[in-house]
């Protein structure tokens, strides 16, 4: 191993040091192992996305072992004011090693100390006791959550480690890649195969394209760890296994006062509004419920419950109506559930619009949905123009039938496989089993 960031090398021999050299901290002939996962915490708990990344990392490294016959580890790293318990939780969630740093000043994310600590950990610096579990220069891969703080940290840690990063990834896999780019091969016209490359897929160009990003060594300047930040919700967490064994390591490092020049003086939780986005299904009710507003709302909620991941929305017509809802459904009639121009814009896989006439203002809030099913007695209702299915009927009759069908289908799929729905059945049954736990 040789570190190219030495003072005498910042002079390139041209008689003046160039401004880029001081940032070159990469290695040559370095040794890299393991996948590191930054487990972000909030208010003393691991974020969901931290668990999701651990689940994905576990899956990747199990596959890695199968593919290459080498066992490499999942290493969780985290910091805060009291992380030991969380580090143990990381083990239960798929990590082999969990490295943590506790300091009361680290209760909330701060760019400078978090980056310094993360880079310090990754380089294996610190006391012998806290680093003797590893024998490599830097991690092979590293994952960060694509949250506001996680993105910032990922960018800075990778900068400090002089490596690359693909942000906001939604899919990851490891395989070889043949490259002809002379910058990477060192020679024009020569192809070179890189082994064990993390392929990082991310939506790009304002969501118009998927790009696959690779972080590859240059000859003489090796870009490791290969880094990615991961969109929350992209992967499944592992079920916690308290029996899992792993190593919990407390990291040691002196934190300089100067690193705390940015101070957090206050933090307020934002009022939690209703978020209708990000669900697979949205059931929206319109003024078609007028005859029995409370009853209509109940029917909508029952259908929502029949789905795995659905939310209830309403039209502006309901928000501004004088309907008198009974107490138990009244909360669902508030503006925070409104879909449309002045409300939320949703694009679920399935949108069920019951008794919605389909004003233009409503359309802009939902017409990016994959499939739109309208239920309406009025075949002239404007929503017909932007629906895939138009069920010509009274929502008070149609909704209960849909609910019943969805419920019984779920039961049927889980319990009574039929030949024509085999693929679904297997998958459904497998996960259905998990759900029963």
């Amino acid at each position, binding site marked *: 191993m040789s570190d190219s960031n030495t003072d005498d090398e910042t002079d390139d021999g041209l008689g003046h040091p*160039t*401004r*880029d*050299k001081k940032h070159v901290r990469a290695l040559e002939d370095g040794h890299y192992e393991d996948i590191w996962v930054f487990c972000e915490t*909030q208010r003393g708990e691991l*974020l969901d996305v931290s668990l999701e990344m651990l689940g994905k990392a576990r899956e990747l490294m199990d596959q890695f072992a199968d593919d290459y016959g080498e066992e490499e580890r999942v290493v969780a790293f985290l910091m805060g004011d009291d992380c030991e318990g969380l580090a143990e939780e990381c083990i239960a969630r798929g990590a082999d090693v969990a490295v943590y740093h506790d300091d009361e000043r680290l209760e909330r994310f701060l*760019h400078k100390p978090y980056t310094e600590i993360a880079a310090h950990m990754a380089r294996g610096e610190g006391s012998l006791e806290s680093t003797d579990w590893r024998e490599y220069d830097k991690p092979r891969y590293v994952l960060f959550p694509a949250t*506001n703080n996680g*993105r*910032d940290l990922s*960018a800075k840690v990778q*900068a400090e480690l*002089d*490596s690359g*990063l*693909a942000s*906001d990834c939604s899919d990851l896999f490891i395989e070889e890649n043949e*490259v002809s780019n002379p*910058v990477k091969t060192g020679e024009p016209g020569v192809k070179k195969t890189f082994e064990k490359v993390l*392929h990082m897929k991310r939506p790009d*160009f*304002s*969501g118009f394209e*998927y*790009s*696959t990003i*690779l*972080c590859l060594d240059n000859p003489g300047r090796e870009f490791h760890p290969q880094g990615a930040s991961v969109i929350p919700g992209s992967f499944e967490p592992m079920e916690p296994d308290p029996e899992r064994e792993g190593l919990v390591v407390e990291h040691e490092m002196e934190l300089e006062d100067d690193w705390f*020049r*940015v101070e*957090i*003086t*206050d*933090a*307020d939780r*934002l009022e*939690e509004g209703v978020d209708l986005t990000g669900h*697979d299904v949205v059931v929206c009710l319109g003024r078609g419920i007028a005859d029995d507003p409370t009853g209509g709302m109940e029917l909508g909620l029952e259908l929502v419950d*029949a*789905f*795995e*991941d659905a939310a209830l929305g309403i039209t502006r017509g309901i928000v501004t109506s004088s309907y008198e809802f009974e107490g138990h459904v009244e909360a669902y009639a508030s503006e925070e559930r409104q879909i449309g121009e002045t409300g939320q814009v949703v694009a679920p896989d399935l949108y069920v619009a019951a008794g919605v006439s389909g004003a233009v203002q409503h359309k802009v809030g939902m017409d990016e*949905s*994959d499939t739109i*099913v309208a239920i309406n007695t009025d075949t002239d209702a404007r929503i017909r123009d932007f629906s*895939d*299915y*138009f*069920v010509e009927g009274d929502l008070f009759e149609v909704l209960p*039938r*849909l609910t019943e069908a*969805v*419920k019984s289908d*779920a*039961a049927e*799929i889980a319990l009574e496989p039929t030949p024509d729905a085999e693929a679904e059945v297997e*998958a*459904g049954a497998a*996960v*259905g089993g998990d759900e029963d736990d």
Partner: protein
Amino acid sequence: MEGTVRSIVLTKGVPDFSEGAVSFDEDGHLERGKTPTVMNPNDEVALRAALQTRVRHGGHVSGMSMGPPGYGDVLREAMESVYTDDNYLLSDRELAASDTWATAITLSAGLETYQAEVGDIDLVFAGFKTADGETGQTGPQTAWAMDWPIVTHVVALEVDPDERRLRAKRLVEGDVDEIETVEAPLPCFVITDPEFEPSYRQASHRLTRKRLREETRERAADHDDHLTTWNHEDLNLDPDYIGLDGSPTIVSSVDPIPKAPSEREATMVDPTDADAMDDVLEELRPHAAGTSDHATEAGD
């Protein structure tokens, strides 16, 4: 002048993804050549934050961008649409195909050159994420390269030039969303969140803003007089460490993402017709409780 603030706003040119402007080939790939380049939409927010500081405290705002010579138009757009006093373009063939880290190193060289040749910087503003790369990395990495403090996801900003400190409110995203109040010393990087809103509660500030907006629009008409272009030699950069050569990452492949249909033709369904209703139920079934994302994918 005492009490004034010198700011740099980092901007980038991106393909205009708005409807009617953006062009795709038959395979659904973006056609860069046929799609006009515009200023990254989020950079407007950063410019507005810089203008707020300029209005309240006076001083100077410079726009800075890295890109081909045509990006002068992007800087002109920054001057015209919001505000800059002058603009700096870092432009050189050697800078082509930079990834975020190579870009950050180049921008930091631009800031250092500016400090050496123009004046000491108090604040560097940048927007959150570009519309093309959407990485959100360049701002933090440039701050890291400068070893300056950074405050990201800023939704409100107050600067105290005499105390040489700023106070910002920033949005923290997590399992619950939070607003942090943060204080930092100058010089400092400020990355604005798209939710950032400048605040002008004084009539005199609004009148000043209005005057500055008129002036900057007039200035933009003669943009070339206010644009300085620096190449890698001006910036004192070694070609082996910038551009493609200095970039850890490469894009290995690009696949179009299928878009939802824009035109729909509704299939009329009679709820008493069991077969017709079954087509509808077919759409509902994969989402039934007890199935999950994973199951749905496998089923596909």
